[in-house]
């Protein structure tokens, strides 16, 4: 190797390194980082991008150079030089990638191990995934009763451990801005640990195919100050006077089931009286007025029962079929079913009939 070749090699190497560093430092491939875990993960990702860029440029560069430089000259029908291989070169391109991937394994392990550590003052929250909605339970004084929430509220800079369960099929708990993803597996409690570090509103989306409504399964995440968080949790307390007991045909119990997100109704349906604001399915405001006569030979009550047990029997025009879970027949007790239907039968547009003001229709 003469001096000129050496110089060229050094220049190319410096160029590759600079290109790699440039991509690693300036890329915008990841969304906003809103958790303490996001920083080391992004740093690892960017480090991998530096190496990836260098390898990419070497291979594509050599390929492009060959395509331009080594194309057959017109009229030349002879073969190229019979080069069968080069042991030294082959050893180099086996050893260098081996060192790189082992190094990346170690680095990745370090980042992952740090995420698994228990941190002081960890707040333990409970998540339940079901077709096609998430619901969240917060730690609270055992003397009060707390409703489940369809929004995930988190105090900023407090380490969180989410305990994740599924009521039906597999789901994936994912907040892209937190870089955290963990599957919800029926029959198991799985865990996700992170510390939110940036105030704002994000989305928890489902990342594991869970049925026809998979793409609709996302709930709001709010990272807020400790004071706002406390205020939110307090707002979930169900006053003792309003805590109904389970009972056959008990409309108050039906409302409680909806309010507490027991069956995930609020993920899709809209009814301010029961504290739910879903936008995916048909609204429940003044539902009782429409229920009768929608299907021939079905009174309002039969229609509502059928709509819960056999959601595809009648699909309100403009809304997708198959999104509503079809297994409430197995999951919902008769007590709960009748109570929910009784509560829904109270939803009429006439405010005097059930004491609720006529709500806006979405």
């Amino acid at each position, binding site marked *: 190797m003469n001096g000129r070749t050496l110089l060229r090699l050094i220049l190319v190497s410096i160029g590759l390194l600079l290109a790699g560093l440039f991509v690693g430092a300036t890329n915008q491939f990841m969304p906003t980082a809103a958790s303490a875990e996001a920083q080391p993960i992004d740093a690892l990702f960017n480090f*991998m991008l530096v190496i990836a860029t260098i390898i990419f440029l070497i291979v594509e560069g050599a390929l492009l150079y060959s395509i331009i430089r080594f194309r057959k000259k017109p009229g030349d029908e002879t073969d190229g030089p019979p080069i069968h291989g080069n042991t030294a070169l082959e050893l180099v391109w086996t050893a260098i990638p081996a060192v790189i991937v082992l190094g990346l394994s170690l680095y990745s392990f370090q980042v992952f191990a740090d995420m698994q550590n228990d941190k002081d003052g960890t707040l333990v929250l409970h998540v339940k995934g079901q077709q096609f909605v998430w619901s969240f339970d917060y730690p609270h004084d055992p003397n009060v009763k707390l409703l489940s929430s369809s929004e995930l509220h988190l105090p900023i800079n407090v380490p969180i451990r989410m305990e994740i369960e599924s009521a039906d099929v597999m789901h994936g708990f994912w907040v892209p801005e937190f870089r955290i993803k963990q599957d919800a597996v029926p029959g198991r409690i799985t865990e996700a640990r992170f510390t939110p570090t940036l105030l704002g509103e994000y989305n928890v989306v489902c990342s594991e195919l869970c049925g026809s409504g998979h793409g609709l399964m996302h709930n709001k995440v709010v990272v807020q100050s400790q004071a706002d968080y406390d205020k939110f949790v307090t707002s979930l307390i169900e006053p003792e006077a309003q805590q109904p007991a389970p009972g056959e045909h008990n409309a108050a119990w039906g409302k409680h089931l909806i309010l507490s997100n027991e069956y995930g109704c609020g993920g899709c349906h809209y009814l301010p009286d029961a504290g739910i604001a879903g936008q995916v399915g048909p609204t429940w405001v003044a539902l009782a007025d429409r229920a009768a006569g929608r299907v021939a030979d079905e009174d309002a009550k039969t229609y509502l029962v059928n709509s819960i047990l056999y959601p595809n029997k009648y699909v309100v025009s403009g809304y997708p079929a198959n999104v509503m879970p079809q297994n409430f027949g197995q999951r919902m007790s008769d007590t709960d079913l009748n109570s929910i239907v009784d509560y829904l039968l109270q939803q009429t547009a006439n405010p005097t009939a059930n004491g609720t003001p006529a709500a806006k229709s979405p």
Partner: protein
Amino acid sequence: MATTTVPAVPLTSAALHQRRQWIKYFTWSLDHKVIGIQYLVTAFTFFLIGGILAMLIRVNLLTPDSGLFIDTATYNAVFSMHGTIMIFLFVIPVFVGFGNYFVPLMIGAKDMAFPWLNAFAFWLIPPAGLLLLAGWIVGPPGAGWTAYFPLSGPVYSHADGQTLWALALHLLGISSIMGAMNFLVTVKNLRVPSMTWFRLPLFVWAMMATAIIVLLATPFLSGALTLMLFDRLAGTNIFNPATGGDPLLWPNVFWFYSHPAVYIMVLPGMGMLSEVLPVFSRKPVFGYRAIAFSSMGIAVLGFVVWGHHMFTTLAPWTRIPFMVTSMIIAVPTGIKIFGWVGTVWRGKIRFTASMMFALGFLSLFVIGGITGVILASVPVDLQAHGTYFVVAHLHFVLFGGSVFAIMAGAYYWFPKITGRFLNERLGKVHFWLTYVGFLLSFLPMHISGLYGMPRRVAVYDPKFQAINILTSFGAFILGIGQLPFFINAAVSAVSGEVAPPNPWNALGLEWTTSSPPPEHNCDGDPVAAPDPYGYGTPMAVAYLAGERNMDVLLASGGHAAPHFAEQPAGGDR
């Protein structure tokens, strides 16, 4: 009058012969070449069906709402069918088709070792395909090609399409296992004497590695499918947590098959690349043994990486060993890629359509390999898993990799199969539409995935609409870009330019017989070139000129060639 009827007789019989020729592809034939064509035509038909489903997916994703399919369950069925068809009815059988046609020819055999078994293995495929498609009649499967429980169980997928899905895959698995056994015995026992292990074409090495994987992995798929059928039909609760079953048993067993299956889908393509690149670079393949052994290394390592499909599912610490093995498997893959670049380097490149697809494979597979390493890192995968980043990665590997290799092989071997060339100009149009459409379609998916778009969604956050329109636009170019190929194949098979026995001046044994080969493949035992990729050596000149005396060929010099002009002779071979 008599003078006019006499020449009419041979014409009629020739026409009748043509007709019989055509019909034999629809009959039970024991000829490996007929079976090979049956595989290829069947697989490309399913490529067309799977492609139409892909177009429907991309039309639907033009808008963030449920768009084309008001019923989101239909969307789930479309992508489930797309994945299943492309994997099990296109990529896997198309390679078996090429292998069936060319492995016996490349080793100088008259047929596969078990011709009856060979025909039986093929004839399981059309009924399996029909069984799968019949799902549309009884309620199609919608749990994805991975069919995770409990979603694919009787409660959440009550339509019978999911059962038919399992039955169809069962048949295809049996077909694969029989084919693999046949390949291994054929290569082991039916090579001509001059075809020693290290004169074996790299495509044959790749088919052997593939057959070993199929033989060891596919029974696990069969086992899992049997359990699925028990749960769906016989009322067992093997995957049902409510009664002590475990839903995680399914993904573990499924991926224990399906990760090795990724290599079933790409190793034969890599083998084709090792055939095409040396011929059109007019240079020996760079590092024959390294490429052959890396196939075997991938076959072995491929069995211990399945957990990386479950980095968000498995208990945290069990993810680490799978991360390390998944990282390491990049090394043998890298050896192949560098070896191919070394093959092209300093060659005298002929830009045929076949070569363009081979170079396209190289340029795209690098990207798929790099994103594979990124996905192998557990912390980064926490962001990328289950998103469009994975969709991008798998299409770079399976389309940018496998399908580009299939096309390279198709243009390369079409003259041998039909005796006629595919039109090169149309082939280049096909290449550029495919290449540009592919990049427009799949590059943007990396970004939408990392930014928060999960895969398998019929509706999505409107902020991803622009990137999805770009992706769909690319996909339409890609889809339309395949039409020139199908038209080309149909027209050229009948009226293409007639091809000589060895149109590319290649050294493989398949080129020493006529195009198309006679029913018995060749007369006597053909003599293999002492170096299957010895382009540029005096041996190659002698062999291509018709010299078949092994002593003369060996003496002519093809082995001790210097690696680089400025280096002394010597090397690893």
